[in-house]
């Protein structure tokens, strides 16, 4: 039995249904990310787990106990907000101690636990500071310590890094993941940043309009997207039009070439049109030992992104981006140049709607 179970959750605000039949089972100690565009219902689901919203239908069970009817302050769930939400009138120490004080823990225990938490986030030296005397990154670490101090059953984070600048965002997400591993706490992390979700999660839930489109490990989500939405939302997607040649032999026809692909073509008939996708990093300008297919194209543009050069090609009707590693000894292809793109037919993904 899973530690945190969301079964058939539905939520409507008035006539508008924002969460449709959401199901998810999370194991103890797992780090789950909810990834999706703005307004898809990520925060709403998180708030239902925390008890700030009541599901219109469905149940939330944590550790075998039904939480659906419990008030937020009876659930023992740690929550970290985008806007930090530290108590402005309390010092760092008092903020972290708040949950323990409310629980009526003895003074010595509170002091020890707060010290332990501050050591975990490396801010022991700022215990007497007030929130307004600290940077955003420091405040968010304090908010994390405050949420973790009362040993919650589950930790919820709602876009905790969105208000921070890029560098701190990366270092803090790694710190959060490290602390989560150390404590083994079951965690749900909401983000709309795919890189964030891919880099720190055990599993990702890709959400679209109040539904979970796909639940899987980062590599499953990225390499085997289940829907067109997932494929286009996670990473850059190049769609190429092709025709089914032989569904049983998994062969498609792309221009003049007949290609064997890995994805099953079940349900499709010979001659039917199909969209296949190719990730930007799966193509090269010169053949490699993996590549067994090639398509000609015309360079539209080339962008230097540091470690990689992203080039856009016009292939037939569609535009394809691909990345190559920056090679200081070579100039990137110029617009208008005719090139041949090589790739492995195994890397093609069949996109279903």
């Amino acid at each position, binding site marked *: 039995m899973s530690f945190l179970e969301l079964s058939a959750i539905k939520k409507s605000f008035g006539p508008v249904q924002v969460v449709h039949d959401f199901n998810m089972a999370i194991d103890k100690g797992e780090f789950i990310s909810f990834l999706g565009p703005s307004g898809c219902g990520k925060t709403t689901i998180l708030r239902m787990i925390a008890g700030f919203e009541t599901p219109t239908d469905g149940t939330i069970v944590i550790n075998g106990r039904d939480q659906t009817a419990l008030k937020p302050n009876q659930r023992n769930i740690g929550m970290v907000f985008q*806007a930090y939400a530290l108590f402005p*009138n309390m010092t760092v120490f008092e903020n972290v101690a*708040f*949950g323990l004080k409310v629980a009526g823990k003895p003074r010595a225990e509170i002091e020890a636990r707060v010290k332990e938490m501050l050591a975990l986030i490396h801010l022991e030296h700022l215990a007497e500071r007030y929130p*307004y005397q600290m940077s955003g990154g420091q405040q968010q670490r304090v908010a994390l310590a405050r*949420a973790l101090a009362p040993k919650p059953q589950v930790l919820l984070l709602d876009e905790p890094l969105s208000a921070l600048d890029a560098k701190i965002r990366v270092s803090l997400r790694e710190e959060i993941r490290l602390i989560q591993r150390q404590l083994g706490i079951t965690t749900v992390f909401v983000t709309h940043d795919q890189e964030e979700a891919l880099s720190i999660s055990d599993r990702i839930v890709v959400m679209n309009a109040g539904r979970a489109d796909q639940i899987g490990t980062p590599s499953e989500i990225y390499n085997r997207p289940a829907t067109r939405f997932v494929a286009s939302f996670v990473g850059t997607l190049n769609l190429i039009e092709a025709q089914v040649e032989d569904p049983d032999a998994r062969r498609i026809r792309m221009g003049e070439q007949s290609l064997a692909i890995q994805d099953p073509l079940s349900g499709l008939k010979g001659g039917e049109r199909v969209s296949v996708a190719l990730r930007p990093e799966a193509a090269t300008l010169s053949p490699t030992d993996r590549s067994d297919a090639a398509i000609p194209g015309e360079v539209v543009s080339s962008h230097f992104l540091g470690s990689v050069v992203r080039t856009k090609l016009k292939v037939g009707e569609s535009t394809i981006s691909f990345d190559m590693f920056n090679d200081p000894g070579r100039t990137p292809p110029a617009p208008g140049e005719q090139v041949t793109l090589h790739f492995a037919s195994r890397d093609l993904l069949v996109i279903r709607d």
Partner: protein
Amino acid sequence: MSTHTSGWQKAGAWAAILFGATYFILPLVATFEFSLRMRRGEYSFDAYRSVFTDAQFQESFSYSILMAVLTIVIGMLLIVPTAYWVRLRLPQFRPVMEFVTLLPLVIPAIVIVFGYLRLYNSSSLIPFTGSARGTDILLMFSFMTLSLPYMYRSVDTAMRTIDVATLTEAAQSLGAPWRTILFRCIFPNVMSGVLSGAFITFAIVIGEFTMPSLLNRPAFGPYLQLIGANRAYEPPALAIIAFAITWLSVGLLQLLSRFNKARPPKP
């Protein structure tokens, strides 16, 4: 804007301030000067001594101070949770609250007090005016009504600077019940508003005449009026004392708002 016009504007502004200040300060100086002339032929503080040793002054003044403190404490216990709840759960009610809390400014105190006398007289269902203690309670509530616009506004403004909803949720997720949230997480963060509301209330209660006079309670306002009608040198002394108290309140208010600026409750 050119320096030429701004130079003229500056001069004009100073002239206006000077004129206004004269308008204020001259009567004040004259009042003070007069209050010092009780002893014939020389300046003395005799009028002040006479006021301070008057048992009635001590009584009415301490009565009014007690009233002010009670008004502030009970008023804030009512207003802070109300403003909090309206912000948190009934935001659509805010215009209604604004309107209701402004009513005491529009309705004259005399109208309110006659309303009270009709509603709460000794032969009514709720005979507040039947006993002295009951009248005291009624008087306190009438003071609360009079200071409602200032108290509510200053608390509500202070509440705008903190993210009430998120702080509440943070506290709830940490297991806090409503009482703890209100007194540990909300009240301390709107203290600046509570205090500035409190000082204005204090000034209002100390000087209020209509309510205590018509309810026949021994407050400072009616005492001021009584002395004014019967003595020569004490009334200006009392005026100066009342003035000093008011300015002390305003000064404290300034000090506190500066103190508050030094510690902004950043979200």
